[in-house]
């Protein structure tokens, strides 16, 4: 048993100090009011203890006091609310131009993919001094990405990308926990975040055995699954041209407008008919059960690189309503396509899932 135990986790990110400051403020408030109440109760209990002949003094109440002890806690609460909200808002805004890392959670491990194609399991290497955005998805149940030293936590959902970001400040090795109960080995779904100086990080990247960048892995998968058959830049293509699509608003057949972000691309691969681009037919087969989450991430990365000017995606949580109609390009409509094709011909038949809705493994 280690007998000298700390009562604070290490501060290893730009956010840690801010969170700790609010924590200490709350510890102060809690200590003050708890002591106030405890001392009053004990003082009254002793001072006004029942002695023979003692009569209580009847007091019905005081509206003034009631107002005082409603307004003061309300005021303090609002300070805490605003303080907490400011930190949170900062945490939830994606940084501009971050180092983008992808993470996949599954029972019971974490897999990470770096843009250079390096892959890691249960360990994540990051440099100091750089905003790191981790885009996360789960292959099965809900997990949660928790790095106490960074004061960062994000539930990792199946079927939807979420992200978290941090800027590490202290080189070192820190705990990575899954903090959402996920079954038998929930407490074994742990790992470490290794924070390195930028120089060490660069040499770590160089030493890693990558089979090529994430985008090039994506390109391989893109060809392997026959995506190129339809998604081509020429005018005879049966699917929308994907060049320059990433991060842009897209008009759908039902005239809705959505943002072509990671979630939209993933949905279009797994559920192609959910949001069909205006001017195209619902002919694409689902790739659910065929393509893995890792491959979807790589393909998305490839599609990003197809963009002529690599647009920065809006916040993952942006809703289509935030996009004005005038911003929607009309290119897709020009590629009007009438002739229908049997989709099965494009996909290797053997690889199609028997049950497209997917069953648990």
């Amino acid at each position, binding site marked *: 048993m280690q007998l000298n135990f700390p009562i604070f986790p290490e501060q290893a990110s730009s956010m840690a100090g801010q*969170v700790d400051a*609010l924590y200490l403020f709350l510890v102060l408030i809690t200590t003050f009011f708890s002591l106030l109440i405890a001392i009053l109760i004990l003082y009254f*209990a002793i001072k006004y203890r029942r002695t023979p002949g003692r009569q*209580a003094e009847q007091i019905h109440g005081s509206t003034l006091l009631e107002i005082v002890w409603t307004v003061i806690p309300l005021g303090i609460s609002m300070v805490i*609310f605003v303080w907490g909200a400011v930190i949170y808002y900062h945490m939830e805004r994606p940084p501009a131009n971050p180092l983008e890392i992808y993470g996949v959670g599954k029972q019971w491990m974490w897999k990470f993919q770096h843009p250079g194609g390096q892959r890691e399991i249960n360990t994540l290497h990051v440099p100091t001094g750089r905003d790191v955005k981790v885009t996360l998805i789960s292959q099965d149940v809900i997990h949660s990405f928790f790095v106490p030293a960074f004061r960062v*936590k994000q539930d990792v959902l199946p079927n939807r990308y979420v992200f978290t970001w941090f800027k590490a400040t202290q080189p070192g090795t820190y705990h990575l926990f899954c*903090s*959402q109960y*996920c079954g*038998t080995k929930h407490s074994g779904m742990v790992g470490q975040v290794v924070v390195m100086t930028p120089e060490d990080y660069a040499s770590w990247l160089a030493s890693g055995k990558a089979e090529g960048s994430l985008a090039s892995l994506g390109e391989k998968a893109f060809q392997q699954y026959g995506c190129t058959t339809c998604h081509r830049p020429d005018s005879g293509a049966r699917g929308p041209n994907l060049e320059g699509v990433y991060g842009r608003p897209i008009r759908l057949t039902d005239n809705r407008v959505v943002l072509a972000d990671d979630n939209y691309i993933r949905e279009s691969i797994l559920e192609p008919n959910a949001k069909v681009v205006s001017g195209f037919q619902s002919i694409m087969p689902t790739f659910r059960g065929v393509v893995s989450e890792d491959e979807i991430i790589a393909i998305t990365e490839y599609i990003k690189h197809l963009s002529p000017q690599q647009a920065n995606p809006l916040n993952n949580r942006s809703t289509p309503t935030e996009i004005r109609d005038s911003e929607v390009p009309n290119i897709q409509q020009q590629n009007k396509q009438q002739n229908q094709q049997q989709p099965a011909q494009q996909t290797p038949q053997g690889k199609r899932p028997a049950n497209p809705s997917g069953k648990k493994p």
Partner: protein
Amino acid sequence: MSTATAIVKPVMPERHFLNDNYGIRSWLLTKDHKRIAILYLFSITFFFLIGGVFASLIRLHLLTPNGELFEADTYNKLFTMHGVNMVFFFLIPSVPAVLGNFLVPIMVGTKDLAFPKINLLSWYLYMAGGTFSMAAMVSGGVDSGWTFYAPLSSGYLKTHVIMLAVGVIIAGFSSIFTGLNFIVTVHRMRAPGMTWGRLPLFVWSNYAASLIMILGTPVIAITLILLALERGFHIGIFDPKLGGDPVLFQHMFWFYSHPAVYIMILPGMGVISEIVPCFSRKRVFGYSFVAFSSVAIAVFGFVVWAHHMFVAGISVYSALVFSLLSYAVAIPSAVKVFNWTATMYKGSIEMSTPMLYAMAFIGLFTIGGLTGLFLAALGLDIHIHDTYFVIAHFHYVMVGGMVTAYLGGLHFWWPKITGRMYPEAPAKLAALITFIGFNLTFFPQFILGYMGMPRRYWAYPPEFQVLNVLSSAGASVLAVGFLLPLLYFAWSLKYGEVAGNNPWQATGLEWETSSPPPTHNFHEIPIVTKDPYAYGEDAEVTVVH
């Protein structure tokens, strides 16, 4: 009081609800709210002990960091069954179904609850629910956590999730029936002169809790039925693989389970509002503020559920709104604490056992409530969500608050229920042991949580061991504190001093009838002419001291 008893030694009434009828049938088919309360008393004590055994095993396991005592699956079943037993089969029914059942009709001055048969049915439903949950337990256990999060529970676990869910659903109906009975009784059956402004605060708080029971409980039933449909028939509701949405489950679950926190704590607050004026010999400070704060808590409690979901992938804007509203629900609780404290000011305070529990409640609930502010603060919650900080916070509210209030209330009304006094010295000792054991168990968990130890961990990094050992040591002290009352309560049934109608010289209709009360509570329906807690007005009568 010893002087008072020296003047007229009270005797047990000849006939009362306990000896009015004998035999197992007279209990199992009773429609007397007081007997049903006693049925509940035995059953919830049973589930509390089972839940307590699970808690002890959890704390024993966590003495070492590497998970040496139990298998991971076994550990997961232990915390699941601990949570389910304590939340659904102990905390929710504890004060309302035992003390509320016994006292609400007497306090409003009537013979029974509005629907005595439904009251009995509610106990049978509770037992049926308990039977399902026990069956799930003995046939292999369930490892879903008491929160049943989908899609884990609907698509991945191999244990008896549906059986346990059915148990919880059935038990839910029992609390709906109790709530319905209380609401109708309070509205329709008050004695002449018992205006709303004269209702004891215990009745007000049970009334507020009843509103939540009937409005909230159907939602948990629906949620668990949907979960069972998905699990049993692969109807996609929550699991994305079947086209569902897992965050929807959390919205539905917490829409009930946050207000359920107030089903648990409000009746406990009602107990405190009775004990503090009695042992301070004072009117409660700010009666109407205490009464309306209960209703305010019940109403606000319904609009804060997503504060359990700040890291679950909800939008920034809804997180902001739910954080703000969560602070709104904190205010009425603060108002209550200040009013109880002010009630003691210039009182004539007797530190008997119920008062000790009440003082412990005020202190521990204050800490429990204030640490809730940490969790409602968005930027801070991100770090402490799903860690031991949360565990410590809700045990301060649920054990430090609710269980303490329940024990205080049980001691306070024990002479009314049984006609005999419990022994004061061992009771004070038990209260002290409970207080020390409780703080030793749960205070270290705040620090553990901020250090980052996630909840529901079967094994943990070695630097967390010291705090875990402290917590486990505290749990063994706490266990002694909880077991002692079982012994001396049982002892008192035979050897306890005869209490008389009103051993505490308290106000309130329940103290005007005999102890134990007759089957129909009063020989004639009382006419109420005084405010509750009219402690100063009959000062000359209490001069016997």
